């Protein structure tokens, strides 16, 4: 993974000094509330219901064992001994004290981590495929480009006060696992007819109050022009995006109101002015790429026979392999998911002990690295098949081996009313109820591939509009109600879910989810997955069963 050079380190150290000064001036009353708000948000610090919340950047999801141990340390020393993994591969702490945040940032900087631009109306952390570099359907490893984008975005002087937040995601594989169609800019590495690799560029996707699927603005962009093209888009947005209404300020609204053709025309005109001279040189790319060379895999790893033997002997291990591991491009290796969706813990939460243990497991089995995923789990990406049984037992002992990846209980869930100042309704409690209703693992596996996403307000942090089943908490005269949608997807065939009917009372939600699953089981054909059944029969049969 990328290792900081002296300049990278100096930059984040100077950022800590800057923010320490800003915090001191704020506490002395020398910076106003609104001004400090903007400054702290650009260092990841929100003020929430009970306490501030600090969001630390997980650059495109990559974490070293040393960084994991530091996160564990921070959670112990400054928080309540747990952290939370977000849908954009970041790490959140829910209980830090505002005055301690400079010290937290200094601790993080000592392991090449920061919270720069994890919030605010600026260029945010770039995300990518959690299986980048190891998956079997990869066109090219996107991580070097992600690092190039990371550096370009960090402290970008022109684009720190945009109309609204701005998120970029990159996918290097055929299957989009980074929800790139739902980002302000989505980049897909693709191969054109001439066999050259470049980017398909999408713009104007996004979730939140007005979910929109991104549109292609450039079908093929030469890789060397990546930064000039990004700059052209962001400059057009900075100058033309709406600033009169924060709910209409995202680039998706500019694209919608101007039309994609007009937008493409503006961007093209801007890009033509800057493209020459901003190329990513071959040397520069090679220098960054060198940080992402594959680790030294064992050539004979696939000759191990214990893996098959263990699968034959232990049905539980075989099940875990089936659901919680993914194919790896190197024979004899697999990528293993660390499920942060144990039935009795809030989705995406992880304790200090678990963080430390994952660091140890990463050192022991996976070249000292781990990743966070967009669905709020973690991945140890390079596990030798001979080590999987041992790894599974250790994860199981840590409650990190629930074999539910990609199933109904692998829910994306926001912190909801329990923590978040914006939320209108609880989400963690409903997640727990759904977990209890689906506690039969065979039933869960029979349902199969199902993505339930649940947000506690229409800001949609848990991406409910692209959940196969989406659950949105709303407030009606002080009472929590829940709006259900069906048929959303954030993958290749991105789609927004269709509303099922009037919002349901809190005590009806879990029953409604069970009813939806019953309808699916009755209606499905052969191996048909949930999403395909919804597409085939529409929402009416589900609606009739619920209302």
């Amino acid at each position, binding site marked *: 993974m990328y290792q900081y050079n002296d300049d990278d380190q100096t*930059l984040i150290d100077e950022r800590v000094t*800057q923010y320490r000064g800003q915090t001191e001036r704020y506490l002395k009353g020398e910076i106003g509330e609104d001004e400090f708000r903007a400054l702290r948000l650009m260092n990841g610090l929100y003020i929430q219901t009970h306490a501030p919340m600090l969001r630390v950047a997980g650059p495109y999801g990559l974490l070293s064992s040393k960084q994991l141990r530091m996160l564990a340390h921070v959670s112990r020393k400054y928080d309540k001994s747990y952290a939370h993994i977000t849908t954009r591969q970041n790490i959140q702490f829910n209980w830090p004290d505002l005055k301690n945040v400079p010290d937290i940032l200094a601790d993080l900087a000592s392991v090449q981590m920061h919270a720069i631009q994890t919030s605010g109306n600026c260029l945010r952390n770039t995300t990518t495929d959690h299986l980048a570099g190891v998956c079997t359907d990869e066109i090219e490893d996107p991580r070097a480009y992600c690092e190039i984008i990371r550096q370009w975005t960090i402290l*970008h*002087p*022109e684009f*720190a*006060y945009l109309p609204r937040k701005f998120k970029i995601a990159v996918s290097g594989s055929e299957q989009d696992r980074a929800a790139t169609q739902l980002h302000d800019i989505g980049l897909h590495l693709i191969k054109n007819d001439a066999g050259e690799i470049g980017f398909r560029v999408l713009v104007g996707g996004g979730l939140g109050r007005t979910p929109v699927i991104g549109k292609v603005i450039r079908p093929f962009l030469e890789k060397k022009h990546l930064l000039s093209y990004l700059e052209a888009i962001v400059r057009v947005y900075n*100058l033309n995006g709406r600033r009169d209404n924060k709910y209409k300020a995202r680039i998706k609204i500019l694209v919608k109101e101007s039309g994609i053709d007009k937008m493409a025309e503006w961007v093209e005109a801007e890009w033509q002015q800057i493209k020459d001279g901003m190329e990513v040189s071959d040397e520069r790319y090679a220098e960054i790429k060198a940080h992402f060379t594959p680790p030294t895999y064992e050539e004979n790893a696939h000759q191990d026979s214990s893996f098959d033997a263990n699968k034959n002997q232990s049905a539980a291990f075989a099940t875990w392999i089936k659901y919680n591991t993914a194919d790896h491009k190197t024979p004899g290796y697999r990528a293993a998911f660390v499920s942060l969706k144990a039935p009795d813990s809030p989705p995406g939460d992880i304790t200090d002990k678990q963080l430390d243990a994952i660091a140890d497991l990463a050192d022991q089995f996976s070249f000292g690295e781990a990743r966070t995923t967009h669905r709020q789990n973690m991945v140890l990406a390079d596990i030798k098949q001979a080590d999987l049984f041992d790894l599974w037992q250790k994860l199981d002992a840590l409650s990190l081996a629930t074999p539910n990846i990609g199933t109904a209980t692998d829910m994306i869930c926001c912190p909801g009313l329990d923590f978040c100042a914006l939320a209108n309704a609880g989400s963690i409690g409903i997640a727990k109820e759904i977990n209890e209703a689906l506690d039969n693992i065979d039933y869960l596996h029979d349902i199969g591939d199902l993505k339930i996403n649940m947000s506690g307000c229409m800001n949609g942090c848990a991406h409910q509009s692209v959940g196969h089943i989406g659950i949105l908490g709303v407030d009606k005269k002080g009472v929590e109600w829940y709006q259900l949608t069906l048929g959303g997807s954030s993958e290749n065939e991105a789609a927004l879910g269709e509303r099922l009917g009037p919002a349901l009372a809190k005590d009806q939600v879990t029953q409604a989810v069970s009813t939806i699953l019953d309808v699916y089981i009755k209606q499905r054909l052969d191996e048909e997955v949930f999403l395909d059944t919804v597409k085939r029969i529409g929402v009416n049969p589900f609606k009739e069963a619920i209302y």
Partner: protein
Amino acid sequence: MKIIKDKQIIEDSWQHIADDEEIGSGDITVSLSRWNSDKNTLANHSGNIGVRIAPDDNVGDIADDLNKINLIAVELPAFTDGRAFSHARLLRSRYGYEGEIRAVGKYMADQAFYLQRVGVNAFELEDTEEYPAVISTLNDFTVKYQTSTN
């Protein structure tokens, strides 16, 4: 009135003339729209002429006149309005403007570093007590990732 120019606090005599205000003598700035409609008469003005760029303005509109202009004031009506950053950047790197670019309006001392990075070399704030903070934040970082104006 005092401003910061090239990291020094200096006395400044420029007057910002509103669109409905009479033009007196001395160094003055006018809005881009006034410049566009009155540029021929303004050419006879005895003092120096500057132009104020509002967030909605297109800086390209002044590209051909830059050799007649001694100061460009980029306006931030609120610190959250980031259009001035693009305006300054374009003036320097696209249109090659080498005169004074001054940030005017409501912004934070803590934004001065980025403003400097995009080409602003003068800062004018209503609250001049902020000036020491502005000068100090200009040195917040010694390293940078982007190729920008400076």
